[in-house]
């Protein structure tokens, strides 16, 4: 199988979405408004349109370790969601080549009633891997997570650190070409962070892309070689750094 060089090409990308209040989420009220609009319009539901990303242009090539910085609400998470394919842009072009794994949310869809083992399977399936492929890697994933026999109990009984170990191990074991992280590396116990960093370094060495959104500048300087600064949905600075 030919290996495709992963890259991300973003041109004039804009993302806006509507926030619905309770009135415009009601079918009854929407129908009333549209039929006898004039009278009720003042009280009717308001649609607030939020421009989350505004005219973004960015090119990310293999080997780039991009740190996304910016205040809360500057569009970091929206950009990650767009690249990972969860959101769809309102206008502009987004071209992503390569396999992606994104860890955007701390709970990221783990099933707390299921065991660690089952969650590894679930995570693999949801990331688009075939069951046979997952089973091949199972032993190594469990070993990496260092969870031992805890792997067979429901994860609602896990500590936060154990859940993170499971999440990291089950998400990164398939060597995605593009890894998206949202505020994630800065949690967990010291020894495991070291292990994660080693794993990340391995992935970067095999010319993969990492995009990390974080407020932790020290972390970004340690892990990344490129900084993209966002403010109110626009890129205001792109610079390279030497790690």
């Amino acid at each position: 199988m030919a290996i495709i060089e992963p890259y991300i090409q973003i041109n004039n990308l804009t993302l806006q979405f509507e926030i619905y209040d309770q009135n415009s989420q009601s079918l009854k009220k929407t129908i009333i408004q549209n039929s006898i609009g004039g009278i009720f319009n003042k009280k009717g539901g308001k649609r607030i349109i939020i421009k989350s990303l505004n005219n973004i242009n960015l090119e990310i090539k293999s080997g780039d370790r991009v740190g996304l910085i910016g205040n809360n609400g500057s569009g970091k998470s929206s950009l990650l969601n767009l690249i990972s394919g969860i959101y769809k842009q309102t206008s502009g072009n987004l071209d992503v080549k390569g396999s992606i794994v994104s860890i955007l949310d701390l709970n990221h869809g783990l099933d707390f009633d299921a065991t660690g083992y089952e969650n590894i399977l679930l995570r693999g399936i949801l990331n688009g891997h075939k069951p046979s492929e997952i089973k091949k890697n199972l032993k190594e994933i469990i070993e990496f997570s260092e969870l031992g026999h805890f792997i067979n109990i429901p994860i609602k009984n896990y500590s936060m650190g154990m859940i993170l170990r499971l999440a990291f191990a089950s998400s990164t074991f398939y060597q995605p070409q593009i890894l998206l992280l949202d505020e994630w590396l800065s949690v967990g116990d010291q020894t495991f962070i070291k292990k994660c960093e080693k794993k990340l370094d391995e992935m970067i060495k095999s010319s993969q892309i990492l995009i990390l959104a974080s407020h932790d500048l020290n972390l970004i300087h340690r892990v990344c070689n490129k900084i993209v600064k966002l403010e109110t949905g626009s890129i205001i600075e792109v610079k390279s750094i030497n790690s």
Partner: protein
Amino acid sequence: MILINILIKNFHIWFFLSMHEVKKRYRRSIIGPFWVVLSNIIIILILSLIYSIILKKNLEWYILYLSFGFILWQNISSNISEAPETFIRSAALIKNYRISNYNYIFRDVCKNFINLIHNFPYWIFILIWFEVKISLYTFSFIISYFILFLNIIWINTILALVSLRFRDFNSLTSVFIQLSFFATPVLWDASHILEARPQLSWVIYLNPFYHLIEIFRQPLMQGIFPANSFIFCILMLFFGITFANYLMRKYSHRVAFWL
């Protein structure tokens, strides 16, 4: 058609997810979905005792009639009433994984159809117990199973999408399901209306639930192949899937924002 394409291509995803749900059910209680089968049987027996007298029907015939109709109805109604919550319940997954939103609908429908299979031993038991004549057409219920499956998929796709955007649609659905139960020949027999008021026959013949149940009930109870009902269901399937597919093509990418 994207819907069919994903149904086939992502089989390993949605089937795995629904098996996972069934497994969790078994973990909570050893006999799992068989609890539903058991409670259905009890309801069927008690209702049969009462309604066979009220409707002046032979008890044996009525038990058979209710065993197929009622179990199917229970499955259809629980399937459809879950639909408005499909995307809301899967919010965490939708916001974190790139798999098509169809998978969450397929997962829920498939889970309910695995539950339906749990009733088959009971069906086989009563077929033998009441010495129902088996013909080749009896086995056409296997085709019916897949026709019902695909029909529920388009119904649930539309319900899931509309009720995500308009949150009060959910209560409308439950009223509709309740009404349909009384308007569909499950407790009563279609002949009651067809004989007494032939001019009202459209109430039965235009009711999709009637045909969806009939494609099981007739082959299993009488060994008959109900060609008209099959044609109705297949036509409904064709238009339904086309419409559901159109809606999803237009709005699927907005699901993550509406959540």
